[in-house]
């Protein structure tokens, strides 16, 4: 196994040591100080640590470091550009989906991975994606509405640009 692992995080090439063995979430939080992904259970249950790895939403607390070489990771910190929010973030706010906010970064990245690959995702598909996430505050109603609103806004943005990408 290589001594170092090189991968791209939010558009920047990063190199981290392959040892000691640890997980993507440890690297993001403890080493790169990208603390937007949260540690809620550390065993892949709660979804607060979800980031996008090569286009797929993954629970970063169970992705071992050796799987990262050559990959591309997008975290919540890379979703907006520092000024304008991404439509998913905007929609979650508008729907009232943000309460304590601990689950929200993971949910936003889940929806991003889903709608980037499947903008026409059915309600059942969206439900299955959100079902990977725990939230103790909202009762999910506003999160559900926020997800539908996000899809709608992303769709209208694509339509304005003239068709699907």
């Amino acid at each position, binding site marked *: 196994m290589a001594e170092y692992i090189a991968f791209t995080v939010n558009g920047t090439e990063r190199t981290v040591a392959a040892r000691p063995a640890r997980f993507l979430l440890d690297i993001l939080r403890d080493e790169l100080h990208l603390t937007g992904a949260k540690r*809620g259970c550390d065993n892949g249950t709660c979804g607060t640590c979800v980031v996008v790895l090569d286009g797929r939403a993954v629970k970063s607390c169970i992705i071992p470091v050796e799987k990262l070489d050559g990959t591309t990771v997008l975290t919540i910190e890379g979703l907006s550009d520092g000024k304008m929010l991404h439509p998913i973030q905007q929609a979650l706010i508008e729907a009232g989906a943000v309460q*304590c906010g601990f689950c929200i970064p993971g949910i936003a990245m889940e929806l991003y991975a889903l709608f980037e690959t499947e903008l026409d995702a059915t309600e059942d598909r969206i439900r299955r994606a959100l079902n990977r996430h725990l939230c103790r505050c909202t009762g999910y109603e506003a999160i559900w509405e926020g997800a539908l609103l996000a899809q709608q806004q992303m769709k209208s943005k694509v339509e304005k640009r003239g068709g699907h990408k």
Partner: protein
Amino acid sequence: MEFKYIGKSLTRPDAVGKVTGKAIFLDDIYLPEMLHASVLRPEYAHARIVEIDTRAAQREPGVVKVVTGADCDLRYGDNIKDLTPMAKDKVRHIGEPVAAVIADTPQHAKAAMQKIEVTYQPLPVYTDARDAMADDAVLIHEQNGEYWTLPTLNPIAGTNIANYYHLTKGRAEAGFEEADVIVEGEFLYPFGSCAALEPHGAIVWFKEDNTIEVWSTSICPFIIREDLAHAYGIPVADVRVHIPELGGCFGYKSDITVEQTVAYIANFVPGRPVKWVASRQEDFTSTLIGHGIRTRMKLGARHDGTFVALKTKVYHATGAYADTGVNVTIGATHNSTGPYEFPHCDLEGYCVYTNTPPVGAFRGYGHQETQFAIERLIEILARKLGASPFEVREKNYLTAGKVNALGERMWESNGDIIQCAEKVKRAVFTHQKPKEDQAYYYGRGFAALMKSPKGAPFSTKGCYIKLNIDGSASINMGGAEVGQGLRTVVQQIAAEALQIPPEKIRVYPEIDTQYCPYEWQTIGSMFTIQGGRAIIRAANKVIRTLKQTAAQVLRCDVDMLDYDGEHVYLRSDPAVRVPITRLVRGYMYENGMTIGELAHSVSDARLPRYSDPDPETGQGNMGVTYTFGAQACELRIEKKTGKIIIDHFASSFDVGKVINPQQIRGQVVGGVLMAIGATLYEKLDFDAEGRLRNPQYFQYHIPTLKDIPGKQTVEFVETPSAIGPFGARGLGEHPVIGVAPAILNAIYDAVGIDYYDIPITPERLKQDIEAQAADAADKGAA
């Protein structure tokens, strides 16, 4: 009254920070030279510690210090000083701190912690209050009765009873002589966990200048500050507690939970900050848990359904330490009447030490546990009387003129429970219930409820307002935002009170005991009521300051002046005016001479005439303000599996005044789902040895999106309160209170089975339905 900013769905001021991942929670904080702690938990829930061998742990990489409780004599607590930061001679529950490792990284700390060897001598384990109350039970605290307690508490030395509370009204138990019908039952609301997504944690830093700086996931920074100052013998002013963003609370981040333990550990490495964050397992076993309340209840009524007498015995397994649970027991006891008047009450609450993690606040604070009992018992009574359960309730509701168990008289301004009940009845009971079919049984159930804050006489909340040179306002309060939307409420109430638009009002985001005004603690659904009143009082003060300066400028009396958020002007001639931007730092004349005061103010507010209980009767002004409500549900039971599907859940509360419609719906919808979890599957499963079988999210299931009701109806009644700001009442906890009885009453409606405890899992329900059918077949054959 017309409102400009109250009653609108303003967007929460912290939403952007949270949705971009930039909001800073406890575990996101990194300090220079920070060390990390890992804590060893015992193998037994009740045992003497014979020996702790730390030699192997000390040799592990990265280890700075290994800490035990060998020399720990510190006792702390807010109600009963029975807590200890680290076990000394014995362990009393499975999540107790036994030893700790301080190391350079969390991984090193944890690896070394696993090398600590402890020899125990096991003792008998009690997980149920009544077992711990047996005459021959081993004492969990030999010192029970010797600990410092609040003067109102009554520990029984030589037993495991940490407190006995007795409330009587009228002729107490003798009142049952007047009853024509008596029903009784025993009910259990088992242990649960608030299980917020963010686990508990703290950073403690003993500094070279003999001060202590703390960051914690708590909603009680001022209590932590005083408690640490007391423990380490330094002035309260020398302890500084910061509260970063909180990832949910639901009760268990109140009181002192982990801070004294982390401080005890950090005190071994003065000069360096030490961080400890609970693993998910530790969050379940080593913080605070909820409920554990067994209720024996007897209700007497007349033939016409009028309630006569109530007898309640609350057996509360409060866990290994009673400091945080004792008020839950008391609240559970005096609120066990539910929203009904009883001329005669005999209510007893036993707060009992058990070998389980300490019970603390859980959204609802004792109310859902015992009102679950009364709401089930009323259904059973109505059946016995052959009366409508709605009519029985209506005869007895605590409406204006009635007197509750505590002796508090109800006024119209306490709210209208009848309207709440009507709203949910209309939503759920005015259409036909589907008939049983091949796949499902169908049922509908109802429950009414009430909740008081369960506060304390000295509780108050402060507010500091600073007007800025451009006419904007900064608001600084000590109330904890846990997700409930406190900051939005502050912004809206401040906007209304100052008549300054919300976009020009900034609510300070961080709590820091060094600069925030005092707040007792953000508990009991009290913030809107007390905090809101504090804002109005502070706003009135600052407006008075502006007017005093303007009176000098305009050369008139203060009482001739009015204020509209932009100007102070002469009432008789509004053209004579001064903009507030020229008044906030005093008024400056053209030649530079300046008069008047800085426009800032401090105020606070508490509940009026809150009092301790009377030592004889247990009565007193311990509620002061109540929110009444009603809840109902429509459900289906899948015949094949026993699974309960909630098709519709309806809630209505008399909140006095809705401050933010979007947020208040979010509170109700979320609270209802939390209690659906408790009713259908959440239960901390301790074995006979006091070990927790389900300390992970994949074992202790909290509701997911697939578990939500098909529909939630949420409606409000707005009878203005005489206390809260603009008539508002508290609501945060109330949505959890009526859920379990509404669902259990619906289960009876569907299949005719009476349940007295929760959770009702599909396996259990299916088995009971089958047993019932077999029973009926047997009877048919005979």
